[in-house]
């Protein structure tokens, strides 16, 4: 067991591309769930819309700016398709409707009917050259930037730079939104829909706006993940949304910094446990009971356990205020 190596690996992941993309997606989900009280279980649809929205035009040879616009437009269309029917529903029905909506989108994207455009189950590869043309970092096979093992190759660092910048901008945007009258209005919708309505607020439009803006953040996260790897329909599973929930709840739903801290901490713990479980199996701590291939599932068992304990014992997450959490009955 090499504790130092496990810790450095975990640290590297916790600031890596995936963590940054989770933070960005969690900012959007936080706006929807944390601030507006919308139990959106179809957030993955926004990521898929962003990813496909940017990958398809790029593959057809469109310039990067146009592709990015298409990605954002696609996410807005998906938000409207999902939101127009679903946002009139009660909390628990909304959850079921959005989970179904996200899965419908994924099944259509991977279908043979859509294959001429989406490449079906094969997904879209090698479309991101124009994004990496802008990369200022060296990308030689031996170039790594950082200290010792805590370092990244130039390609990842470029995606990370963009993604963390967007996370910071997004956090500032959400901060300004929440401080504005609009922010107070959506929190009013969260706390008491009928009170907000009786004061002349258009609850449905407030929800729709929050849902769509949140979806745009999800789409940005989806785009950056698409640049970093490829686009494959089976990446956009229902389970992914649950993981973003875990990140958001860990940082604290309804807090400004929650998504950032949640993403860093989540990935640090997840990767650290991964390394720890794998090493301890290799070191024979459990005898014959566990094999190396069990390490992957076990970290998800621990993730589930962590989620249960978090909600039961600290529903406000790290940063949240207990009185301002949808999760606890006031």
């Amino acid at each position, binding site marked *: 067991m090499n504790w130092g190596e496990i810790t450095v690996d975990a640290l590297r992941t916790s600031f890596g591309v995936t963590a940054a993309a989770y933070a960005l997606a969690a900012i959007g989900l936080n706006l929807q769930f944390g601030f507006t009280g919308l139990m959106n279980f179809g957030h993955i649809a926004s990521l898929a819309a962003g990813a496909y929205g940017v990958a398809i*035009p790029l593959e*057809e*040879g*469109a310039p990067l700016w*146009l592709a990015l616009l*298409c990605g954002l*437009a*696609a996410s*807005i*269309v998906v938000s*409207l398709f999902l939101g127009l*029917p679903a946002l009139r*529903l009660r909390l*628990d*029905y909304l*959850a*079921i*409707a959005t*989970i*179904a*909506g996200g*899965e*419908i989108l994924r*099944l259509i994207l991977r*279908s043979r*009917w859509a294959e001429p455009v989406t490449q079906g189950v*094969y997904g879209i*590869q*090698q*479309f991101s050259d124009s994004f990496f043309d802008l990369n200022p970092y060296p990308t030689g096979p031996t170039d790594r930037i950082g200290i010792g093992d805590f370092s990244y190759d130039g390609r990842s660092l470029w995606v990370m730079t963009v993604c963390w910048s967007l996370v910071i901008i997004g956090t500032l945007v959400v901060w300004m*939104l929440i401080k*504005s*009258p*609009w922010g*107070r*209005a959506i929190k*009013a919708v969260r706390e008491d829909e009928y009170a907000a309505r009786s004061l*002349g607020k258009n609850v449905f*439009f*407030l929800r729709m*706006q929050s849902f769509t*803006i949140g979806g745009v953040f999800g789409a940005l996260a989806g785009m950056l993940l698409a640049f970093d790897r490829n686009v494959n329909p089976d990446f956009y599973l*229902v389970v992914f949304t*649950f993981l973003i*929930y875990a990140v958001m*709840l860990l940082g604290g739903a309804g807090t400004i910094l929650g998504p950032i801290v949640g993403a860093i901490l989540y990935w640090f713990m997840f990767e650290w446990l991964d390394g720890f479980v794998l090493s301890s199996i290799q070191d024979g701590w459990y005898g014959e009971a*566990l094999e190396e291939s069990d390490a992957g*599932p*076990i970290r*998800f*068992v621990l993730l*589930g*356990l*962590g*989620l249960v304990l978090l*909600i*039961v014992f600290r529903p406000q997450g790290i940063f949240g205020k207990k009185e301002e959490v949808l*999760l*606890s*009955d006031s």
Partner: protein
Amino acid sequence: MPSGNFGKPNGVDAGGTPIAGGSKSLALPGLVVLASLVVLLLAPLFFNLGSSTGAGAAELAQAETTQPDEAESIRGRLVITEDGERVPVPGAEITVSQGNNIIGTAVSDSDGQWQIEVPAEGIYSVSINVNSLPEGMGLTDPDRQTLTDVSVSEGQSKAVIFRLGEAVGSSVSRVERFANLFFSGLRFGSILALCSVGLSLVFGVSGLVNFAHGEIVTLGALVAFFLNASEGGPQISLLAAAVPAMLITGVLIGGMEIGFWRPLRDRKISLVSLSLVTIGLSFMLRYSFAVVFGTDFRSYRDYNIQDPVEIGWITTTPKNLVIVIISIGLLAGLGLFLMNTRSGIGIRAVSANRELASVAGIDVSNVLLTVWIIGAALSALGGIFYGISEQLDWLMGFRLLLLMFAAVILGGIGTAFGAMLGGFLIGIIVEVSTYWIDSEFKLVVALVVLVAMLMVRPQGLLGLKERTA
């Protein structure tokens, strides 16, 4: 709650926000939809006009991705000879399996090509789904629908051939095809109905949306697997294993209600939080199954190979008939229990109105315990039936979860009869829809029914109107 601009009755967003406010917000979403649709529709035109070189590069990239790589695989090209010309046959389903494990399925593309990657060198069997071929087409030799002993050596992409021609003898009439799909839907629907009753009743009694319900289904199926087919287990027949598996699952889930959910409710944790807790639980259970059971597909020891029987237009196996009969019998029994016994009436009373039932002297927490146990036992049986008629794996229940939601929403969430009706309807809709549309869309159909039902009638076919408030 800070009350900022609440004093201004007409301002939805009184200035200072980047979001369109007031009356303008009515028009804005519409415009955005229109604009983005236009962009999406026009975008491809621009690309094709201005990017002849880009398109070439894209084609190259695409060609690279469809090239078989050095991993082992099985592939082929389906063609039919018409007037001396070889015409590709797209859309046919091919399945590769090894023993009872399905390795992968593929569908022939527009050129008739198909390819399935296999994990390693070895002996595999390859079968073609004759029903997925265009009407009137079949194998020239109907006995060669499954090719066993296809050997793949290291790094090889093995080609196999299915000879296609006019369907001989075994041609299935439209009525027969419809009848068989309907029966298949009835079978799947009875499994869904068994699995969904618990989900619906627990919601009705406690208001909890249980995202871990699929794992109860898997648990029941895997307990029966341990009793029936596991090397370390007692290896009793499945018939003898099913009842203990239902009891064990019921007791485990009932114990969970007493030892886990009750303390949580005593802590006054909200229903939203409890729903998120079920997500955590579903992760724990599902991946525990992956550790204990592994991630392969497996089968029970019994009822694997059966000779088909013909009843009227329907051709099926005895096991599927028995599944349908037992399910309908058990669900009818549950119906009688709910209508005529004291506990049954109690369950329905609490589902209809918890406070009123509680005031009337019904022990709500006792009713909830009963509901968890009955629901878990029926889900376990549903899981066992699903395992018999298809296969077992760690994700089987999770895969059914959205269909179970569709069933309970369609029938009316919170009611047992709604879940039964919804289960049968969703099962039949899913299977019969493939008569008209591609089978890869059958799940989409069920999910669209779910969303549509929530729009038009959220209380479901048999639900109570008050629930929507």
